[in-house]
């Protein structure tokens, strides 16, 4: 992947939907841009759980598939 001088936008899948985020942004930054509090959700990236403690460091990459979940009512 070639780097441009400008921050390139990248495409990622979030809960099955395509989203465009700035290249090199952390998962925390991505969550906040969607309006989510990183401390209230759990994140899976390409089928691997991303520990909450590393959400600020792990960067979103082109084509990543994210699942962002939380607790809802259930039996």
């Amino acid at each position, binding site marked *: 992947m070639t780097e441009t001088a400008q921050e390139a936008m990248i495409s990622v899948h*979030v*809960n*099955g*939907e395509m*989203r465009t985020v700035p290249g090199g942004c952390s998962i925390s930054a991505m969550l906040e841009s*969607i*309006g*989510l509090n990183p401390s*209230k*959700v*759990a*994140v*899976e990236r390409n*089928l691997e*759980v*991303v*520990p*909450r403690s590393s959400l600020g460091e792990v960067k979103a990459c082109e084509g990543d598939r994210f*699942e*962002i*979940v*939380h*607790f*809802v*009512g*259930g*039996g």
Partner: protein
Amino acid sequence: MNAPQSVAADAWTVAGRTFTSRLIVGTGKYKSFEENAAAVEASGAEIVTVAVRRVNIADPNQPMLTDFIDPKKITYLPNTAGCFTADDAIRTLRLAREAGGWNLVKLEVLGEAKTLYPDMRETLKATEVLVKEGFEPMVYCVDDPIAAKQLEEAGAVAIMPLGAPIGSGLGIQNLVTIRLIVEGANVPVLVDAGVGTASDAAVAMELGCDGVLMNTAIAEAKDPVMMARAMKSAVEAGRMAYLSGRMGKRRYADPSSPLAGLI
């Protein structure tokens, strides 16, 4: 000693955690979060089951369950409802552990949508993997004493046989196998699914179960908060009846008034 004191002293322990209430309630199917929270309060439950689902990224500011039922006060037991394979259930619980930080989880792997009967082959497989990864799974299962033994050997911290299909409200269909599971288990046994009304919960407790887990029986009652209170009483009544040692059954009558001194 009066009855409430004896119930309070009669705690139970699962995976090293001790609880006073023997009623676990679900948080699905309620009309509102407010009603759900009021029913949990009325039930006296210290554990609630919750599901793990995608956040609605189109509307991230929707109210959340955790805003109404405080996970610091009530133990959240994440479930795997809707999972039909061991892999899906394991994936769900790995996320649940990250979301909540809890190892105590409810495993259910379903076999088919029509009956929501557990797939025991997948359930056993998932139990083995989860235990290796440090989870403490309470496992929903068929009312089969052999399957229950196998789950316990695999490391299940509680055995949770169905009384009847999930959401059916039919009551406990096989008293004999539930009792056999209770007699054979060295971990807590809770009837999970099938309870429809208070007497069903009492029956489960009279059989010697350590607790009862229910959702629909409360959520679909016309007055869920009152039914939650009824279930709390029923679980306590059934437990006390079990501990008190019921009278033997006779085939014929035995008068309660003395025969001596009849005029």
